[in-house]
């Protein structure tokens, strides 16, 4: 009987069980419909899909009972992946030895063009270590004795971390006393504790929220006591850096035209309008849109206010010249697009603090709001048909 392919993804939600993840390294027969029951239609060969209620909302469920991949299976998958990689390189006419993961992604995107919006639903070909969740290897030797001394607790890695951490706390308390010493919080700024999912991934174990909270409390206690380099390193293992938002802002490089005038270009989008703006460093506040003056192009005051906003915010009204082109959208959308483009272009001429202020004011964020589609059975996106009692 036909066995339609279903993804054996970790997220057992209905939506994902219907999508298909094709991969050159995997064959359909390996997929296990763990979240799905099959039922025979009455007297026919048709199969009807029934979804069970075992739905988890968490996506990263490590090592759930249903999917146990043996080491041999993983090894075979890795071999198949490597062979497939070489075939793909030959197909694309490139050297199999220097075929990197980016090349693979490009080749797959070329050979299997997909119009799906969800990036994770598109065909992928990656190393099996990145596809199959990490599983624990067999934890006991040939004589049956487990390797870890806390094996019988069920969560050996987590409890051994707690044991280690508590040992360090005891040691420090013995030497220095139980009260926290006032030290500078050097590395705690600009970094955050691991989240529960990251910790679970690191330990390849399921943890409860209480376990996680206890662990963070232990680490905080350890960090408040004055500790040596070994303890510092232990604590740093569980901190992740938080990138300062403003550093992510892309600042356009300043260019010079044939007359030696400094300018910078940038683009902006709002709804379906796109705009390209060229801002000159020295000018007299003239703005020309699509060849016309801004007063002529935007008769409404509100739109002109939008154009002025970046300059008004930085107190540079009348100090810059702008030439921009815009297409698509309506009048308000075009005004918003030009505002974003101008703000981005201005970043090249101002200090970093001012860039941060602009970012916090929302001038450098592109507005994600787009028109919501109309749904069937309703009159508009939200408006329902008039309800009639009878």
């Amino acid at each position, binding site marked *: 009987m036909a066995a339609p392919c279903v993804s054996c993804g970790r997220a057992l939600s209905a939506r994902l069980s219907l999508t298909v993840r094709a991969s050159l390294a995997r064959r359909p027969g390996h997929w296990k419909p763990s979240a799905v029951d099959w039922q025979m239609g009455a007297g026919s060969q048709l199969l009807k899909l029934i979804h069970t209620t075992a739905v988890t909302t968490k996506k990263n469920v490590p090592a759930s009972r249903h999917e146990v991949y043996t080491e041999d299976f993983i090894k075979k998958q890795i071999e198949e992946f490597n062979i497939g990689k070489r075939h793909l390189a030959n197909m694309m006419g490139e050297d199999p030895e220097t075929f990197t993961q980016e090349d693979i992604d490009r080749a797959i995107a070329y050979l299997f063009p997909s119009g799906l919006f969800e990036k994770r639903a598109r065909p992928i070909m990656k190393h099996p270590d990145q596809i199959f969740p990490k599983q624990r290897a*067999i934890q006991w030797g040939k004589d*049956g004795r*487990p390797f870890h*001394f806390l094996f019988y607790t*069920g969560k050996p890695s987590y409890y051994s971390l707690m044991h280690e951490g508590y*040992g360090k706390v005891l040691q420090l308390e013995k030497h220095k006393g139980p009260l926290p010493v006032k030290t500078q919080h050097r590395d705690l700024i600009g970094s955050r504790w691991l989240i529960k999912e990251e910790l679970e991934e690191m330990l390849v174990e399921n943890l409860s929220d209480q376990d996680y909270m206890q662990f963070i409390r232990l680490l905080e206690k350890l960090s408040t006591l004055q500790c040596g380099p070994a303890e510092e390193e232990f604590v740093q293992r569980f901190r992740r850096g938080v990138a300062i938002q403003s550093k992510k802002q892309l600042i356009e490089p300043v260019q010079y035209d044939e007359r030696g005038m400094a300018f910078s270009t940038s683009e902006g989008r709002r709804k379906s309008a796109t705009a390209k703006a060229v801002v000159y460093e020295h000018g007299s506040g003239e703005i020309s849109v699509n060849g016309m003056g801004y007063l002529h192009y935007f008769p409404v005051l509100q739109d002109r206010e939008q154009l002025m906003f970046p300059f008004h915010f930085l107190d540079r009204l009348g100090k810059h010249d702008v030439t921009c082109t815009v297409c698509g959208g309506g009048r308000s959308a075009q005004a918003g697009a030009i505002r974003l483009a101008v703000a981005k272009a201005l970043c090249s001429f101002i200090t970093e603090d001012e860039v941060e202020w602009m970012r916090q004011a929302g001038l450098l964020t592109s507005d994600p709001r787009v028109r919501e589609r109309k749904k069937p059975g309703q009159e508009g996106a939200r408006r329902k048909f008039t309800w009639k009692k009878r």
Partner: protein
Amino acid sequence: MAPARTALPRLLCAGVRSARRWPGFLRKATPGPAGPSGRMLTGAPNPARSEPQDDHDLQRKILDLPLKHSDFFNVKELFSVKSLFEARVHLGHKAGCRHRFMEPYIFGSRLDQDIIDLEQTASHLQLALNFTAHVAYRKGIILFVSRNRQFMHLIENTAQNCGEYAHTRYFKGGLLTNAQLLFGPEVRLPDLIIFLHTLNNVFEPHVAVRDAAKMNIPTVGIVDTNCNPCLITYPIPGNDDSPPAVHLYCRLFCTTINRAKEKRRQMEILYQLPSVKRAEDSGTRRSS
């Protein structure tokens, strides 16, 4: 005395019948008939035997010899009634907390505090340590269980030092009874469970006591005056709340287990030597 002599052969016979579930090491340890064993003791070997037969005999010799002595590992010398007294092992709880089944072990009560009879403690302790040593000698898995947070760290360190296992954390429901599902189909359960605290954090008997009895796992346990000694194979009446007492127990168990493992290593090396030296070794064996 009696429990040690009868309990172990009973377990061995049980192992022979239900060979599938029982751990591998006990299967080989069936006591041989008197004739050949007597001949082995005097050390007159037969070099004409084939190799697999030789190995089998070797195993039987290594495993049977300690069972012929009442205190093969000499655990008596590790403690004395005086050292137990100094470690405050005799101090029990108040009379109101007394458990009915602990009354035989209580010497009396002073100022409403129960005092445990150290003579009985000493004999029970000797039996328990002897049993632990035998289990460790036969390469059994020993699990230290306790739910007292004051000594959690110490007990885990003790287990690490002996090379055995510890469980001083939240005890999940079917850990022993449903181990096949939790760990895997071929997991090996502990062969001995040592309770340093029989009660859990709400002063109820630890679930592992009952589960070990269900799974036929022998237990050694320190029972205080408020504990139930019924389901524990080798109870040791004694104080489980004072730090010196718990430190003493940990030291005793650690020393016994290490001693037994060392002895096993020595015996294996001894028997690896060629058959010519066996006569000399049999002479030294008696004295060791």
